[in-house]
């Protein structure tokens, strides 16, 4: 591992100033380190400077006006998952957190870091292979290589990697906002909107600029989220990244008409995928298995599977139907 300096500023402004003024070619914020330290060991990340942002006091979950939640970026995954308000108001977010990694990793990992973790595409993490995300212009080794677990939506000729975060999928369904402190002050970034599709610049995972620091996540009040769930299909029963995952929330009127529905997919794209087409199809009509199937089909019509991952299309479709049917209390 390359030698690096380590700084621990007092607050968010100090962290941004330390990182931007450092002149370091590669400076990184350090949260829990569960992804960054590993990438440094692999030689994928080679920072000259680490700025510790785990102890800036961004470690509280608090209620906001109207019944939302503001979650500090340094809250540990395990602590947020167990928060009683989160579990009542946004069960899919708690379930998503508990489905990710292992308990000892969740105790280290931070919420802000979770959103900024890098893809687990094997061509990205192995420095001997070609990867446009790690080494722009070198080519995508996965395109003609192993891509069974890669994207089916929104990918480009430059990159077919998927985003690995479970939390980001649930927050995308909620429509959370990311609070960012940057050189120009604080700004709010809605989700979806934080993570990018790869296009011809897959080296950029997000819309953040160098020096931008996530300080909190804001979950808006959302009645539908009280009845929500996160389902994750993976290659083994636990401690594995998603093959396909679905976060969904459903709110129906007394006569069974869908008032609000939120659906987001994981494991299918370079960013958490909000299933807007499916949501539009469903709003205002009855909550039946037939309509769930039609809406899921409409969403997956956009899919462009690769040679080895066509199975993800029916998997995603069926998972959407299963999760919505469970929430509606109807047979899939």
């Amino acid at each position, binding site marked *: *591992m390359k*030698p*690096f*300096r*380590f700084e621990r500023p007092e607050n968010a402004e100090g962290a941004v100033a330390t990182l931007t003024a450092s002149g370091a070619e590669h400076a990184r914020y*350090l949260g829990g*380190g*569960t992804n960054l*330290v*590993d990438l440094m*060991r692999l030689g994928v990340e080679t920072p*000259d400077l*680490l700025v*510790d942002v*785990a102890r800036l006091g961004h470690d509280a979950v608090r209620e906001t006006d109207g019944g939302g939640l503001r979650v500090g970026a340094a809250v540990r995954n*395990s602590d947020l*998952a*167990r928060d*009683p308000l989160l*579990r009542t108001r946004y069960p899919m977010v708690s379930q998503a957190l508990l489905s990710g*990694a*292992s*308990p*000892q*990793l969740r*105790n*280290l990992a931070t919420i802000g870091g979770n959103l900024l973790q890098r893809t687990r595409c094997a061509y990205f993490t192995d420095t001997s292979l070609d990867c446009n995300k790690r080494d722009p212009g070198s080519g995508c080794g996965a395109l003609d290589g192993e891509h069974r677990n890669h994207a089916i939506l929104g990918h480009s000729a430059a990159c077919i990697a998927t985003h690995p975060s479970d939390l980001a999928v649930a927050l995308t369904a909620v429509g959370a906002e990311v609070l960012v402190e940057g050189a120009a002050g604080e700004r709010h970034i809605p989700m979806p909107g934080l993570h990018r599709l790869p296009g011809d610049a897959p080296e950029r995972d997000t819309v953040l600029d160098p020096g931008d620091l996530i300080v909190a996540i804001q979950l808006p009040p959302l009645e539908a989220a009280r009845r929500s769930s996160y389902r994750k299909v993976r290659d083994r*029963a*636990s*401690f594995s990244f998603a093959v396909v995952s679905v976060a969904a929330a459903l709110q129906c009127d007394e006569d069974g008409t869908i008032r609000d529905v939120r659906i987001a997919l994981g494991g299918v794209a370079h960013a958490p995928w909000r299933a807007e087409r499916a949501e539009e199809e469903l709003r205002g009509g009855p909550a039946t298995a037939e309509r769930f199937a039609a809406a899921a089909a409409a969403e997956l019509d956009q899919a462009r599977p690769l040679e080895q991952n066509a199975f993800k299309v029916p998997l995603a479709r069926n998972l959407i139907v299963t999760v919505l049917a469970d929430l509606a209390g109807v047979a899939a």
Partner: protein
Amino acid sequence: MALHHREAAPVTQVEIDLTINGENHQLVVDTRISLLDLLRERLGLTGAKKGCDHGQCGACTVLLDGRRANACLALAVAHDGSEVTTIEGLATGDQLHPLQEAFIEHDAFQCGYCTPGQICSAAGFIDELDEAVDGPLSDDLIRERMSGNICRCGAYPNIVSAIREVASARSGAAERVGGAA
């Protein structure tokens, strides 16, 4: 002379303060050193094991400020001021920790390489247990929450039964306390 223009090397040695198994240590460390390498290479505490060094196997699991964590991915410098408990610190004198007793009783290992991590992780698991969040104690719950600890010998059935014994004794005791209140 060119030498005079050379910039000072960046400071990559940092002084930190750690309490390990109840004992205070003031150490000057390279910023790159993991908590695991510090424990094993500098302090001679070789109980925590290096398996994968990528956070995937759990052999390095220790209790960091009372909670289980992968020591291989924790930079020592980032945990200045923390309390660390390793397998060496779980027993009280010659009195083994209940999990250590149970692992022996249930023959919950073969080669033993993963065992310190399994036991520290199980201690964290039992401490975290909250029926409101986790539901009732079950073998499925134990398997799910111990999924960060891999055993290449496949001693899982006995690991689960050892943990079940200690965890159910703990929750039984909690129920009795609750019942009396």
